[in-house]
Every structure is written in C-alpha cells, then in structure tokens.
C-alpha cells in the first residue's frame, strides 16, 4: 500500500456522478461532485433521507463505483484496483461503524473485536482487543455476548472493533441512529475522544445537526450537490 503523504488529501472525489437505472428511468443522485479530505480531518455529511448520503459513503470507501469521475484514496484511483486490492485496502486502512452495530451474535465482545485483527493475522490480536475494549469502558464485560449487552454497549464494542485495526479512515454511518439521546451522546463523546487520540480521519454520516457540529468540516448533500457549511 502506498505510503500516505500528509500534504496530499487522503480521499479525493473528482467530478463524481452516480445514477441508477430503475423501472421508471434513470435516477441521478449526484453529478460533478468534488471533495477533498485531508488526513486526520473529521468531516460530517448531512442531508435528508434519500439524499444519497449512504451511497456517497460507499463510493468514498470503495464499496461502490461511480458512474463517472474518480475516487482517489491516498492518491491512488480506486477504479484501478481490483476486488482483491480493494479488500486489502479496507482490511488495512479503513474501518466502519454502522447504525445497527453489526456484531456477530455467536461471538462474545472480546472475540468480536479480535476477529478483524485475526483476519489481519496479528499476533497481538488478543491484547489489542482487550486494550480497546477497556478504552470503551467494557473491560468488565468482555465475555458477554451481543444479546447480553445493551444497544449502547453493543455500539461501544463496534467502536472498539473499528479502532482496534488502527485504520487511517473511519466511516461512521448514523452511529447513534438506533440509540436514545443520552446513550448516543456518550457514544459520540467516546468516538471523538478516541479519534483525537488516534489521529484517524473520521467521515461521519448523520442527519443530526448537533452531532455534525462536533466535526471540523460539515458538508450538506442536497439535490445532488455537496455544499460546504460554515462552522
């Protein structure tokens, strides 16, 4: 994987367009979309339901390909990478946090966090996983299964899992969407604290203006255009 140069953006979208074919005809989600994200930056993408936030996130993470334009990750065009190379990129440099946590139900908290580390073949998988679970305040509940944890606790396991692989970029899709306000607030605090400590680039998707306010940059996706919002 190419070494990241801190002068150049870690993710760059160049004139990206995305459209879908439906029975009713072609639907264009966005066109000529430009975006540049610097390493270590935190950035929120906000917009109404159906505006295309999740699609934009999958494009930036290399999970989907644009109809037109290019996405560069660390200066390299994702279009030039094959499936295996993109999977390797995700494995080594990207993590996700989802609205519905997505933990494996048959693994306890420790094993859930350990799983991506083991896939990477890390020898210190166990120590790393324990460390990150302590970081999110679940040191005493490592042997609990997802079904034995509350929603907030499950999301904290997911956060520990996301940080454990020490990614360059962390994508979070409505991370508090399934949580009550207070728990959501605690989760966000933790997310930003860990992010600041690790120096990870954070790309957050939300429709919560307050949450977006915690990020250094906020972008509004509206009518197929991405507008920078003033701080």
């Amino acid at each position: 994987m190419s070494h990241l140069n801190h002068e150049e953006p870690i993710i760059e979208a160049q004139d990206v367009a995305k459209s879908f074919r439906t029975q009713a005809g072609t639907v264009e989600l966005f066109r000529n979309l430009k975006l540049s994200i610097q390493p270590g930056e935190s950035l929120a993408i906000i917009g109404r339901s159906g505006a295309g936030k999740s699609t934009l996130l999958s494009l930036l993470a290399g999970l989907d390909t644009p109809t037109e334009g290019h996405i560069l990750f660390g200066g390299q065009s994702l279009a030039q990478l094959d499936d295996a190379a993109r999977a390797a990129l995700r494995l080594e440099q990207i993590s996700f946090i989802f609205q519905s946590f997505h933990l494996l139900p048959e693994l306890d908290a420790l094993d859930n966090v350990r799983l991506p580390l083991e896939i990477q073949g890390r020898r210190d998988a166990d120590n790393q996983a324990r460390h990150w679970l302590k970081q999110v305040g679940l040191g005493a509940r490592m042997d609990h299964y997802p079904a034995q944890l509350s929603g907030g606790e499950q999301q904290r396991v997911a956060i520990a899992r996301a940080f454990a692989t020490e990614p360059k970029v962390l994508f979070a899709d409505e991370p508090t969407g399934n949580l009550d306000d207070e728990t959501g607030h605690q989760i966000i605090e933790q997310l930003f604290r860990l992010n600041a400590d690790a120096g990870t680039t954070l790309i957050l998707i939300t429709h919560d203006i307050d949450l977006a306010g915690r990020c250094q940059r906020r972008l509004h996706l509206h009518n197929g255009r991405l507008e920078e919002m003033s701080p």
Partner: protein
Amino acid sequence: MSLLTRLAGRQLLTQLRTTEWRALLLASWIAIALTTLLAVLGDRLERGLLRESAALLGADLVLNSSRPIPADRLAGLPLADIEQTPVIQFPSMVGQGDNLMLVSVRVLQSPYPLRGELVTEPPGSGIPAPGEVWIEPRVMTQLQLTPGEQLEFGYQPLKVTRELLASPDRGSGFRSFSPHILVNAADLDASGVLAPGSRANYRLLFAGPPEVIHALEQTLRPTLASHERLHALSTDQPLTGNALGNALGYLKLSALIALLLSAMTIVLALRRFSLGQHTRSALLLNLGLRPNQLVRVYLYQLLLAWLLTAVAGALTGYLLEWAVYHWLADLLPQALPPAHWLRWLSGAALGLALLVLLGLPPILQLARIPVAHLLRGDTPPRDRTALLLQGVSLLLLAATLLAFLEAPLAAMGLLVFLLLGGTLFGWVAQAGLQLLARPLARRLLLGRLLTMRLRQQRRWHQLQAAVVVMLLTLLSVVWVSRSDLIEQWQAQFPSDTPNYFLINIQPWQKADVDHFFAEQQLETELYPMIRGRMTQLNGEPIRPQLTAEQQDHNTLRRELNLSWHAERPTHNPLVAGDWWQPGDTGAISIEQSMADELGLKLGDRLGFDVGGILVEGEIRNIREVVWTSFRPNFYIIFNPEALQDAPSTWITSFYLTPEQRTLTRDLLQQFPSLTLIDIDQLLNQLSGWLQRLGDSSALILALSLGCGLMLLGVTLLQALEQRRFESALLQTLGVTAEQARRLDLLEFLLLGLVCGLLASAGAEGVLAMLHQWLLKIPPRLHLELWLSLPLLAALVFVLIGGLIRRPLRLDQCYRLLRAG
C-alpha cells in the same frame, strides 16, 4: 484450530437452534442412513446370492442342462488339468412321519464343491456319505428333525448327520430359494425318486487354471444345445430374472423418493439460511475476509454438519441393516457374507455429495454480496453464472443418485412420474382449496382474509400438497396392498380350486395313479407332457417369418411343454375353430394369447422339434386358458395320434380338504418318484415374501414420510416472514391474536383435508389399477382410506404449522412493521 474453522464451528452451533438447520441435518441424516442400509444390504445380497462368483457357483465354469448329460458330451474337449464333478438337482417331497415338504435335492459326487465350501454343523469336509443326508435349518425346523434321525427320501431312508448352513452351487431362479438337502449319488437309484424323463437340472462343474478354463469355455460355448446353458465367472453378471434382485431394485427405487425429498429439504433449508446470511457475509467481507475465505467458512460449516450426520447416519444405517437382515433371515436360503467395507461409506459419500452440490451455489452467491449491503441493503445480483452453477449441481446430483440406484431407466421413469404426479396433485389441490374457501369467505369473519392468504401462498401450497399427497398415496398403496392383495387374489378362487400339482408321473405309473385317485374318489385328469421346441411355420423355419418382438416371445425362447388329448379340457373353452373328431390326424389346438401375439391363425401349420424328430400339425382351434386356474394348462395340445409315442411324463392337479391331506403321504409312499407341489405352501411362501417386501418398503416410505414432513416444515418456514408480517399488520389493524391464530390454523386444516382427499383418490386409483390389471379382479372401495387420510393430513398440517407459526405480541408486531 484456524480462524476459519473456528468461525464455521461457531456458526454451526448458532444455526443448530434454527428450524432450517435442524431440518437440514435430519434430512441428510435420513438420506445417509437409508443409503447405508441399502448399499450394505444390497452388497451382502449380491455377494451372497446374486452375483456369479466362484464361491457362489462352486466352480469356475458350469455346464447346465435340463436333460441328462451324455457321457460322450465332453469328447474331444480340452480337459487336461481340469477337475470336474456332476451334480443333479431336482424338486422332491421328503418327510418324516406325517410331515412332508417340498425341497430341492442336490445329488453329489466327490469332490464337491470345486470352489467355495460347504458350511455345516457339526463342521467337517467332504460330502454326505452314502446313507446320509445333510439338510438346511428350514427343513430341520419344518419337519421337526434332529441330527441322527431318519429322513424319508423315496424308498430310501437317510440319516440326518449334519445341518447345512451355507453352500455354493445353489442353482439359479426359484430353486435356489427352496430349502436344500444334499445326498450322495450312491443313494439316488435306491430311492427311486428320479425316473427317466423327470424334471431335473443336470450340471457339470469344472475348475482349473484360468487359461485352461477359458479355453474350455471357448470350445464349449459354440456347441451348446438349446437345453444347455454355460455359466462362467468371466460374465460376472447378476443372475437374471431373480426375484430377489428385483425386490432389491424395488426397495432402492422406493428409497429414491426419500432421497429426493431430503434433497428438496436441503435446498429449501439452505435457501432460507443463505437469505438470512447476507448481512453477515457482507460484514465478514467488510472486516477483511476475502471472498474465497468466506466460501471456506461456509464450506467448513457444511462439512462439519456432514460429519455429524455421517456418523449418526452410518450408525443408524447399521442398526437398520441389522434389523432388516434379521427380519429377512428366515426367508433367505443361507447366511449372507459381510458387506465390503467401502459400502459402509457409500451413505456418507452420498450425503457429502448432497450437501456440497446443493450447498455450493448459495455459498458462492454469498461470497459475491456487496459490502455496501451493510449500508444500503443491496442484495447480490442473480446472474447467469449462479443459475448455471445451480443447474450443473442439480445435474451432478441427479447423476449421483441414478448411479447409486443402479437402474437409471427405472429411476428416471419414477422421477418423471413423481414430477408429473406432483405437479398434477399440487395444481388440483390448490384449485380445490380455492373452491372450498369460497363459501367460507362469505360466512366467516376471516373468510376474505383466508381467500387472500390462499392466493398469496398458492405457490407454496402447491409444493406442500404435491409432496404430502404423493407420499400419502404411495404409503397407503403399500400399506393396503401388503396384506390385501394376496388375500383378495386368493379369495377369488372357488373353494375347490386345486391345491396340489403332481408331476413326473411316468407312463407306466399312469394306470396305478389313476386307480389311486379313483379309490380315493378324487376327480382328476392326467395330461401327458412332452418337451418340444417350436421350429417351423407352414413348412418354413419360423423365426424369419416373425417380427423382432415376436421372436423374443416366451414360447420361442425355450422348450415348450406340449400335450396331446382326445377331448377338449373342460376348463379350456374354444374361442375359434372346432375340436377334432376321433381319427383326425395332424391337428393342433393353440392357446389364445400365443396365437394373438405370434399372429397365428386357423389353418397355419406348426412344426416342433421333439427329441430330434419333427412333429407337425395344423391349427384347428384356439382355446382360452386361465393360467391361474391351477390346472394343467398348455400352449399347444396335439391330437393323440401325433404324439402318443413320444417320450412323456404325466401331470395333474387336485384339491384336498384339510382332512384329506394325509393322502399325500400315502400317495408318495406308493409312488416315491412323483413330485408333489403343495400350492398352499408355495403361496404362503410367496405371501411371506411379499409381506416382508411390503414391510421393508413401508419402512423406507415411512422414512420418506419423515423427510416429507421436514420438507413441509421447511416450506412453511420459507413464507414465515410474509406470514408474520401479515399477522402483525392485521393485529395492528385490530384483529386479535386469537383470530390471527385461527386464520393460520384454518388454512392448514383446509389444506390438510384437501390433501387427504386427493391422496385417498390417488390410492384408490392405483389400487384399482393393481386389481384390474395385475390380479384381474374387480376393484373395491377402501372406505377406511377416505376417513383416515384427510384426518391424518389435516392433523399433520395443523401440528407442523402450529409448531412453526409463533404467536406475536402487539409490541413485536409494531417492531416488525417498523423494521419493514
């Protein structure tokens, strides 16, 4: 343990709690157990009784003849280094006191056998000494003999010295299944049981170095006469026309149904499983697992499942085989050798093929799931490759199944029959259901919802009905016919239908036998029997004048039993022509079906080779013959002058009341060379076989029913989400949980009733056809089916449906609806 196996193990453990995986495991368990049972039992039967091996032939080469083999038969043949021994085998009545039974006698000379060994109790070598007899356990039991006692063998009492437990050279066909006794050739003449012209099988057994035997076979084969057969090891073919082989084939075919149902259960269970694995697969891919690693995780999971079911299935197969073998043991002529060890693995191997071939397509599809599914719920596209893969997998599986069953054509036929029958039943059931629901729709509060539900679920209803109706139909047919058919077939005969055949009556005994029957006031008529081969039609060789199908006719493939008679047999009415007058010569009476099938008509001249002499006659009349009348019946009857000088034996049949049965003893004491065939005993033996065969196939069909019930459960699962969603919607709209439950149960009840009625109709149809065509007796209605099947089917649907549908609380309803 590697990460992937650990993941697979954990997945399997979690999945074991789901209905679809339990169904999958049970289905492959049954499939493996059943396959193991049939493979092992089949192998044992083939090795013990059905395949021409040296140990079974008792020699390397056997010359078989229906006539005594003349001393000069082997003149000029390459016999150096070859060991040989003659054997005569024939049916005879033997007895002790008032007990008589029909056995197959083998008359031996040393050395015997040339290959394989005689297993006796007490153990020993050689053959029975003169004055001694070795008898099989069945003879021992039926005649209540113990070693050391005397067995009456014609005029010659023989001392029972050993029990014969197993022996090669049993002969082929029905005689190999009769109880056997072995006697020394030195006792044959004194016994008087085998007169010239009596029916017997004469064999010469040969053994020697392979190349010498091969040379002998090559020289002998072109010289075979029409009454001779040569059995060589090199052919290694299953003995043809063997009832046991057919029975085994029949059992394997009935297993096809269970295997198909298992396969369908596995397909549907995996379908539901894989639909629920999209998010998980996407997540694992997102966490960095490569697609090929993901495929391995799921494959390992399948392999672990296979390992579980292979062990359980092989063990169950072993127990079933043990039970069935002991069940059949007293009907089998001798103990069977153990199966080849590889056969024990064939069930597990078929299970592996089932799971991998059916599992691979959905697993490969899972590996193609986009990670974006986690964000947007995308599902993988079903492209051509996936469809192609599924098609190839199903073809491979079909080929594997057909190869296992070893009767591809019959299996294909059954497959087509099941598919067509299933489609028809499914369609009719679904239409019947709509019809039944229509009046309910107007009367019941939930009626409209019910018709909506029936329309919505019709695809699954068709499949469920097809499976349940076909299974219940087959099961009822087997169940009813196992006792019913023979009883009804026997019941159609008048009570004085002959129950004994008497054969091998020599011409010089005829007057005395007639006298014996007259004395006992038994009405019988003796018919002469002359062996002859049909060779000519209208003065020309017959074969070239016939079609290929006609050339294969039963009457042309073997020597016929010809007869001559002055009067028309009273039980043979004429359908064309007139019976001859005294003094008419060169006249023939022919049986109706033979005339029809060979296209012979009045006035045609037929020529027969009778002991090397051509005997000709003109067809003067055509007779109707009821072959099941248990009277002497012939295809061809000549006028007396034509054949009365030819060498013949005589045959008759007669009826004895149970009180008169001791007469058979007097008869055989007076004429020891006569062979008496007890028809009741034979029919009992036959019905015993049919009953065990019916029971065995009922056992297999019961296992199939188990598979069918699992399939039913899995099909109900497929639409479970839809049902739950609909239930949730109805409940939030004001329907009570109880009403929602009633709606479900009403649907299952109606479906069950319709399936039961259809199965009753189906079973009646098949039984009626069996009655009409096989037994030729008028069909009767089985009211018990019409009552029990609808009730049974309704119960099955309501129970399984009730188990699978889970009630929803109102808060669950809301959550379900919110989740979409």
